[in-house]
C-alpha cells in the first residue's frame, strides 16, 4: 500500500498559502475599506492581488 505523503503535504502547504493567504488579503482589503481611516488605494491593491491569485489558479487548470 502506497500513501502519497509528499502529494498530501504539497496540497496542505499550497492550500494553506493560497487559501488562507487569499482570505487574509481580502480581509485586509475589507478592513482598509471599512476601518476608521478609510484607505481605498491599498484596499483595492489587496483585492487586485486576490484577483491575480485566482487567475493563476485558473491558469493551472488549463491544459497548456
Amino acid at each position, binding site marked *: 500500500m*502506497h500513501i502519497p505523503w509528499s502529494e498530501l503535504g504539497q496540497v496542505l502547504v499550497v*492550500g494553506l498559502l*493560497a*487559501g488562507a493567504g487569499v*482570505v487574509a488579503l481580502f480581509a485586509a482589503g475589507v478592513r482598509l475599506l471599512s476601518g476608521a481611516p478609510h484607505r481605498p488605494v491599498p484596499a483595492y491593491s489587496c483585492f487586485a492581488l486576490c484577483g491575480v491569485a485566482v487567475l493563476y489558479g485558473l491558469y493551472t*487548470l488549463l491544459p497548456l
Partner: protein
Amino acid sequence: MDFIVVVVIITALAFDFTNGFHDTANAMATSIATGALRPRVAVALSAVLNLVGAFLSVEVARTISGGIVDETAISPAVIFGGLVGAILWNLVTWLFGLPSSSSHALIGGLIGATWIAAGGSAVQFGKIVEKVLVPAVASPLIAALVATVGTYLVYRITRRASERGVRSGFRHGQIMSASLVSLAHGTNDAQKTMGLITLTLITAGSLPSDADPPLWVILTAGLAIAAGTYIGGWRIIRTVGHRITDIAPQQGFAAETSAAAVILTSSHLGYPLSTTHVASGAVIGSGLGKRLAEVRWGVAGRMAVAWLVTLPAAGAAGAVAGRVADLGTVGVVAVALVGIVLAFGIYLASRRDAVGAHNVNDREPAAPVAPVAG
C-alpha cells in the same frame, strides 16, 4: 451503435444530472445561506460555470478509467450496472440531505459491478486505497485546517472594522469564491462522466483507443451536469448552509476560498479529491475557526457516516445491478425498469417534505434524518 451502448450513455448522462444537483451545495450553499446570492441566481450562476468548466480541460476525463478497474475485463452491461448503483445511492443520500461524494458513488458502483461480473482480480485494490480512500480521509481534514486558519485570520484582521462594511465586503467576495468552486467542480465532475462515456464507446469499438472525448460527449455531459445543478439539490444546500454551523459571510468566503484552493492545487498535482468532501470539510473548518463550539457535531457525524457508507453501499447496489444486467438484454431492461421505479419512489418520498428555493433558508431544528449517536 448497439442497444446497450445507447443505454449506457443515457444512464451516464442521468448520473451526471444527479451529480449536478447533488453537488450544487458544494459551491453555493454558504452563499445562499448568507444571502450573498439569491437562491435562484446562485444555482443559475453555478450551472453556467459548471458548463464552462466542462469545456476547460479534458485532462481529468479519464480519472475514472485510470486503473481503478480492469477495463478489458468488463462489458458495457457491467458499466451500466455500476451507474445504476451510483444513481440510486446519490438519490437516497439526497433524500436525507446528506452531502456524500458523487465520485465515490460512481467509483463504488463500478467496483461492485466489476467485482461480481469479473472477479476480485479485475479490481485494483492498491490503486483504490491510494486514489480513493486516502484522499477521502485526507481531503476534508486539509480543507478544514485551511478554512480554520483562514476564518481565524479573517476575524482577527477585521476585528476593528465596522460590522456592516465587513458583511457587505465579504458578501461580494463570496460571489467570486463560490464561482471559483463551481468552475472547479465542472472541470472535475463533468469530466468523470465524459471519461466513462468515452470508455464505453472505446470498448464498443465506436472510437479508437486513447481517443479524446468527442465534442458531442463534452457538450451533452456539460449540459447534463449544468441542468442538474440548476434544478438545485435544495435538501443538501440546507444541510451544508445551515445545519452544520451558522454561517456569516466572512466564514462562507473563507470556506469557499479554502475549498477552491485545495481543489485547484490537487487537480494541478493530478491528485484526485472529492469536491464534496473538500467543501464540507471547509464549512466545518469555518465553524471551528470562529469559535470551537460552533460546529454541530451530530450533523458532522451523520455526514461522516454517509461518507463511510457511500463506497460499500453504491458498490452493493452496483454489484446486484451489474450481475442482472450482465444476463443480456432482458437483464438490462429489468435493471432499467427497477431503477426507474425506485428513483420515482424516492422522488415521491421527497415530496412529503419538499425543500426548494422558497424554504431553503428556513431555520427549523431537526434535519429529516434518523439521529446517529455522537
